[in-house]
């Protein structure tokens, strides 16, 4: 085992440039995942908070009978996606507006505000499509003038989150492929430079898995180093954003470890493909 580890480290010394390059590309790959993942994570977080307030407000035409209003509210409350539906009378609407606007309450002196039904959607049904569906059902009541909800905002945020997710995935995977190719090239050089040693190992009865092991360990080590570097880069980027732009959240330990594991996997795949191919030629 000692010998295996020593052999694995030899390549770092023999091909420092290529080794550094493969570690850097793995780091870039994971950094891309990390950065866009962080954006997606934070949007997701924002959406969660926002969604807590996702509300439909259905404005009721003047002169609607309160009984009709009450029965409509209880109908709506029974929709599967709906958490609650509350009736707000003209007086209540006015009182609420005054309390919300504080210093500007005088504006509402003598004004009338329309009555409404305020609908809260169940968590898990707060995606744009579902909210839209509920809105159109509510709008179908003849005495409903208009339905308002933060449709544009929600859709935009969702789209942004998806774009961040996809961009991170595409960029990250591209870098992952590039780093596997570079690791492959490093291993190729390492195998060829040790061709004589390997052929003697075979001759005296070393198994293929024994011969392979240091190369695989080398790949995994590079992957983990790349992962650590990416973690550092992501953390620095996040800290800067926190300081100069907005408060954000970082990945939890589980996701961080998963990132490192993914780095190790990139290294392992890159090296095992290459070592398999080139050992046959030695």
């Amino acid at each position, binding site marked *: 085992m000692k010998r295996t580890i020593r052999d694995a480290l030899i390549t770092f010394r023999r091909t420092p440039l290529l080794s550094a390059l493969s570690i850097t590309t793995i780091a870039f790959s994971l950094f891309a995942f990390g950065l866009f993942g962080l954006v997606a994570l934070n949007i997701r977080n924002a959406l969660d908070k926002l969604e807590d307030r996702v509300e439909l407000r259905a404005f009721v035409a003047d002169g609607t009978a309160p009984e009709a209003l009450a029965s409509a509210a209880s109908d709506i409350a029974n929709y599967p996606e709906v958490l609650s539906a509350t009736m707000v009378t003209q007086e209540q609407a006015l009182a609420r507006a005054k309390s919300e606007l504080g210093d500007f309450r005088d504006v509402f002196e003598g004004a009338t505000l329309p009555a409404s039904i305020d609908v809260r959607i169940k968590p898990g049904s707060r995606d744009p499509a579902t909210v839209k569906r509920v809105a159109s059902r509510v709008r179908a009541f003849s005495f409903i003038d208009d339905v308002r909800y933060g449709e544009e905002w929600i859709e935009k945020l969702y789209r942004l989150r998806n774009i961040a997710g996809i961009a991170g995935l595409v960029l990250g995977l591209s870098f992952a492929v590039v780093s596997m190719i570079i690791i492959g090239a490093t291993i190729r050089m390492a195998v060829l430079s040790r061709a004589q040693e390997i052929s*003697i*190992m075979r001759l005296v*009865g070393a198994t293929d898995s024994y011969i392979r092991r240091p190369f695989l360990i080398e790949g995994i080590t590079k992957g983990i180093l790349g992962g650590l570097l990416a973690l550092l880069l992501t953390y620095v980027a996040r800290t800067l954003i926190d300081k100069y732009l907005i408060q954000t959240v970082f990945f939890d330990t589980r996701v961080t470890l998963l990132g490192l594991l993914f780095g190790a996997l990139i290294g392992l795949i890159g090296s095992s493909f290459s070592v398999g191919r080139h050992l046959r030629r030695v």
Partner: protein
Amino acid sequence: MIRFTHVTKTYQRTGTAVDDVSLNIGKGEFVFFTGPSGAGKTTLLKMVYMEERPTSGEVRVSGTSSITARDREVAKLRRKLGIVFQDFRLLDNRTAEQNVAFALEVTGTPTAVIGPKVARVLTQVGLSGKGTAYPRELSGGEQQRVAIARALVNDPFVLIADEPTGNLDDRATRGIFQLLREINGAGTAVMMATHNLELIRRQEFRTIEMNRGAVVFDSHEQGARQARDG
């Protein structure tokens, strides 16, 4: 112990290297393989350590069959064989000791056993004082002794030597050959390919002559025939 049964080896580009060879090599035997370049000696030896597999026929070495053996079994088999080449194949950046120890290290021998084993085998080949020398500091004959020490360190039942004296002068040749005889005397079989007819003529060992991939003469069979014919 080693049995070739109707073994033919054909290469796509160069044609037939070994042509329908059947032979048997017993425990502790000393066998010369001779014949012109390209006669198939090297290919034959390669099939013993299963670097090459027959196109048809079967080679059995100590219970391992060329037909069924997987890579792992071949690796295990090679730990019981010693293999020596004309070009020594030593690692230049390692001392004589380290070159010999290498064979033990990569087959997972416990570190504690390696030192004494290496010392013993270096003494056996007459290099007890040169363990710390690098190959470039040794003569050709000495380098070949290191290679032989490496081949012997796993206590093989057969030593396969492909032109082991091909790069050596007369004196070194005689020394190496004497060493191989001693090794054989201790019970290890030796299969040696050589061009050196002078060497063979002076010996009473079994000689197999090959030409164009076929065995054209086997002193063993000749002897058996003479004994039979009276």
